[in-house]
């Protein structure tokens, strides 16, 4: 049974089209010109209870708008949004008590209060029973390490601490469904890992359904079974993570940093796409070239300081899928 259903959902913003200069500003004052921006164009998908779904796309693809349609913040211009058997916008008060939402770029903590005060207020807002509240706090202390900074003011927290506190705040009332919009944005590897582990734990142990957006392909590969890709407001892909990886092509880049100025010779099966005195970038096909072979070849030949394998970015994945679709049409 799908607990979340989006059917042909559209969202159009109407914005005033500014005109340049004083004459333009005056013209605007009397006859404003409007422009419609289609942030979401006829998107349909469904999510089953207990799923963990990644939602990706480049900047401005309509991810946040879709999340806002699903959380009842915005009303769809057309189409249907049905979650937990309710209409998020119309049944807002009943609906939002059953979901949790994290916006990575906007904290929900009360800025001038200690984190613990925010939690206390949330406990009252959602009517969380005392045992549930205690049990959840213990879990958050364990996995997210909240105990270290629970009594600090929200505005004094580091970004990583703030994000952990925000995620905990969204889960205090045992929501059935959680939306996370960029929960790892701006975080370092350690903090990202902590948050990924926590999301997996909540999903696996409690069966909480999760939809998370991210810019980070690794977020998706580590945590989600299924991904949905959108760009320019339209759905591009809905399927497994491995399916996305194969669609995104098998080309990878090897970046080599040298200790001394080096001129590289070409290596068979690779393409030298960028070279300067201390760095070279080889592009290769993961299907035909074993990574460890390439690495050992390079390491034997040159004096190496560092090597990195570059995974394709979300932007390039989207570009590949998009052009593949165009070709099919």
């Amino acid at each position, binding site marked *: 049974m799908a607990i979340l259903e989006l059917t042909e959902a559209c969202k159009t913003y109407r914005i005033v089209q500014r005109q340049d200069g004083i004459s333009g500003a005056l013209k605007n004052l009397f006859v404003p010109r409007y422009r419609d921006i289609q942030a979401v164009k006829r998107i349909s998908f469904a999510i089953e209870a207990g799923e963990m779904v990644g939602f990706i796309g480049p900047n401005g693809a309509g991810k946040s708008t879709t999340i806002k349609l699903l959380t009842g913040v915005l*009303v769809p211009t057309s189409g249907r949004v049905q979650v937990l058997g309710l209409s998020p916008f119309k049944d807002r008060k009943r609906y939002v008590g059953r979901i949790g939402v994290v916006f990575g770029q*906007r904290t929900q903590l009360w800025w001038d209060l200690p984190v613990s005060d925010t939690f206390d207020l949330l406990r009252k807002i959602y009517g969380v029973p005392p045992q549930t509240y205690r049990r959840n706090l213990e879990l958050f202390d364990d996995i997210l390490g909240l105990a270290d900074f629970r009594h600090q003011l929200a505005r004094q927290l580091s970004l990583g601490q703030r994000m952990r506190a925000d995620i905990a705040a969204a889960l205090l009332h045992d929501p059935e469904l959680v939306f996370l919009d960029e929960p790892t944005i701006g975080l370092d590897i350690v903090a990202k890992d902590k948050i990924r582990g926590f999301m997996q734990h909540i999903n696996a142990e409690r069966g909480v359904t999760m939809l998370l957006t991210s810019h980070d392909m690794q977020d998706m590969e580590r945590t989600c079974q299924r991904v949905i890709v959108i760009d320019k407001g339209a759905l591009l892909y809905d399927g497994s993570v491995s399916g996305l990886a194969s669609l995104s092509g098998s080309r990878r880049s090897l970046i080599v940093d040298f200790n001394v100025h080096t001129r590289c010779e070409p290596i068979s099966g690779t393409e030298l796409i960028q070279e300067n005195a201390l760095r070279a970038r080889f592009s290769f096909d993961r299907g035909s070239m074993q990574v460890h072979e390439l690495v050992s070849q390079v390491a034997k030949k040159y004096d190496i300081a560092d090597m990195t394998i570059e995974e394709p970015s979300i932007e390039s994945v989207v570009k590949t899928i998009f052009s593949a679709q165009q070709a099919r049409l």
Partner: protein
Amino acid sequence: MKGAYIEIARKTLLEGLAFRVNTLIGILDTVILIAVNVAIWKAVYASTGTLQTVSLEDTITNTLFAIGISQAFWMDEYSIAHKIRTGAITNDILRPMHFGGMILAADIGRAGYRLLVEFLPAFAICALLFGLSAPASALALPLFVLSMAMSFLVLHSIGLIMSYISFWYFNIFSFVTIKNAAVLVLSGAYIPYWFMPDWMMAFVRASPFQAIYSAPMSIWLGHVNGSSVLYGLAKQALWIVALQLCAQALWVLGRRKLAVNGG
């Protein structure tokens, strides 16, 4: 759930108490404002002799209460407007609470702290300096308090309507400024109704401004008696209902207009 609204009111009240210098300045501000207005009325009475139908003492009492309390009943339209403009209102929408109810709780908390720590001391100082008429009867005191509470609700409802205008207009500064000026002039705080010309009174009687400071003050001063007290209270209640309905309609329409871009 109910606890959450009370908690919001309590937190706002405590937040106000945290700033001591602000409190002192608030008291001083109110005392000066009342003293200046009392001086003006004294001068007016001195030059017009005994022509007035209402005594100087009653006029001073009106000034003490209405101007003093108007300092405490100051609504914060801009912070809601800011939330709507920046999209920070998302956080409030995601709480299973009534938005107007949350604002009411915060307004009560703020007014509560201003009444307690700013108005009461300022009022005590001014009462000692300028004197004060006693309430018209023993019953007038509780009715005055009830009526003043309804004045607060009228002001709160008007404030909500002003804030919700920002769903449509980027800048509500001019709307709020006009509203504040109208409240100052037409609510009976700065110009008691007994000094107002008839044509102006005809307008004021049909407006919600009459349901603000003049309603409780006329009870305290005994300008209304018996059934007309009840009539005045009923009129206040009616204005609250009408303004709240209007605010709720704007909220429902405004939420459809809301656009939250980015983040």
